[in-house]
């Protein structure tokens, strides 16, 4: 297990390095700079600005300086949010985004797995068809449609929950965004669980367990659940990427002060250092979650370790 983990972590570092280098190169080599849009900037002022942000240095020097900064956890100053460093902006927003993402993933597992199992146990009944129909809709409906609709129904018509905003320590504000974000993931998890549960229920070891007279609940809990969770666990990696992407929209829809809007704003403002910082943070987050999902998988299914 340990050897597998080390091997897996070893492949992580070069990937991250490639991501950093590539995004640095693409962004710096692109035509146009962050100060282009400010109208009629005198050349001397622009030169001073470039010098202040180190943009007048050769590319290699800039790159090394950026890497050195990263090693110290510094992402450099933001070009547009003048009084903030990128690190400060990320530190402000990340707790909100992480809470949101974590809630969405947990919700997806806690709701999706039982739904999928239920559909499998009641195969071809109205329950099964209902759950599968909802799953199709959940996957097809994009979050930027679901979010406003949920806000409309629960926020405005029923007046149960706040439409938007964020108050620290008030889970009410988190509920609609987390549900919006997790809906497609719930749908996907339910689908995966249903398919694998059906397969596992036909397996020999389940028949043996039943033949030995073990109670049905115990058969399901002890013998069927673990193997049928494998596809769900391997989906957790892509699910993280999905949640990260979706959080950009959900934070916009519900006006949450997370990091998603910095990425969007940074792209609109051509704020290079902000976009790069966000990409590195989100990229490493995604890689990390993929790693955790892989390790979890190999723990559940020892066969992959010895591949």
């Amino acid at each position: 297990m340990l050897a597998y983990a080390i091997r897996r972590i070893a492949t992580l570092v070069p990937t991250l390095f490639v991501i950093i280098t590539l995004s640095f190169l693409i962004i710096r080599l692109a035509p146009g700079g962050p100060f282009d849009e400010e109208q009629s900037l005198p050349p001397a002022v622009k030169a001073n600005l470039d010098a202040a942000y180190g943009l007048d240095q050769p590319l290699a020097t800039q790159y090394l300086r950026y890497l050195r900064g990263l090693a110290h956890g510094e992402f450099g100053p933001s070009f547009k949010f003048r009084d903030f460093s990128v690190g400060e902006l990320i530190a402000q927003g990340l707790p909100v985004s992480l809470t949101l993402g974590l809630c969405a993933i947990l919700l997806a597992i806690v709701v999706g797995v039982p739904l999928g199992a239920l559909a499998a146990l009641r195969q071809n009944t109205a329950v099964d068809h209902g759950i599968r129909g909802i799953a199709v809709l959940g996957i097809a409906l994009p979050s930027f449609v679901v979010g406003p609709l949920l806000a409309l129904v629960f926020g405005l018509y029923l007046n149960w929950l706040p439409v938007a905003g964020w108050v620290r320590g008030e889970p009410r504000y988190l509920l609609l965004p987390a549900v919006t974000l997790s809906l497609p993931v719930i749908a996907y998890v339910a689908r995966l669980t249903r398919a694998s549960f059906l397969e596992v229920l036909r397996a020999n070891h389940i028949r043996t367990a039943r033949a030995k007279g073990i109670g049905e609940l115990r058969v399901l809990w002890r013998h069927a659940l673990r193997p049928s969770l494998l596809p769900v666990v391997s989906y957790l990696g892509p699910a993280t990427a999905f949640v990260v992407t979706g959080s950009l929209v959900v934070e916009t829809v519900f006006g949450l002060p997370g990091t998603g809007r910095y990425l969007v704003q940074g792209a609109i403002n051509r704020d290079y250092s902000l976009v790069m910082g966000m990409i590195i943070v989100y990229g490493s987050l995604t890689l990390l979650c993929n790693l955790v999902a892989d390790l979890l998988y190999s723990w559940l299914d020892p066969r992959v370790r010895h591949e």
Partner: protein
Amino acid sequence: MNDAGARVAGGLWADAARRLKHHRAATISAAIVLAIALLALVGPSFSPYRYDSLDWNHVAVPPQLANAHWLGTDRLGRDLFVRTLHGLRISLLIGLMATAVSLLIGVTWGAVAGYVGGRTDELMMRAVDVLYSLPYIFIVIILMTIFTRGNVYVLFMAIGAVGWLTMARIVRGQALSLKRREFVEAAVVAGVGTPGILVRHIVPNLIGPVVVYATLTIPQMILYESFLSFLGLGVQEPLASLGSLINLGAREIESAAWMLLVPAGFLVVLLVCFNFLGDGLRDALDPRDH
């Protein structure tokens, strides 16, 4: 020889068409997609309004027949019927163009990697893995950061440029198995070069899975575009796409829910239909699975 090839191909496609006709969800979906496309093409010419003309006498009015604002107007008095159909045009166009871009890159990349094999294969597929590990949207956002926003061509290049990864994987797998088939070996022995084999023997035999996956790529591309336009990174005013219309509508849900519901409805119907169509095509072209 050409004749025999044509007959076999015709047989395969005729078979597939027959199976597709029996797939009810797929045929209905295809009809709906065609109807929506047709509506997007000719619909705006029936309305007296243009997509960017302002009607100050009817600002944010709900759908009604009397003033020819069949789907109402937005905050600026722009006709939502025309804007939604224009948005549909852009969404469909981007869906098709971006799919074409991803098809071009993905098929080339996958076929070369799979057929050439060895070191080349490993390097090419490792590149795909690295890109895969990043959420696709970041790459699009980087591209949209550095290019001028609002250029529709950049937009579909950018979206197509990230959509080819899965296609490359599928094509590579197919190319790997085709490589060992007798007709390819025969071509090698006959002295056909690598590019010739790729173009004449590998790519034509990939068409089945490629068509299926391309159909499933179109709704994805439409979704990416709407996503970006929703965030303000895609199509820019006064042009509209379904995503930007949904964004504007979402801000007005308290007073004017139709502004959200109309474009959202079109988008969802389009996505669902394309997905059913892709499923139907998969069943039709790959009967072994069933």
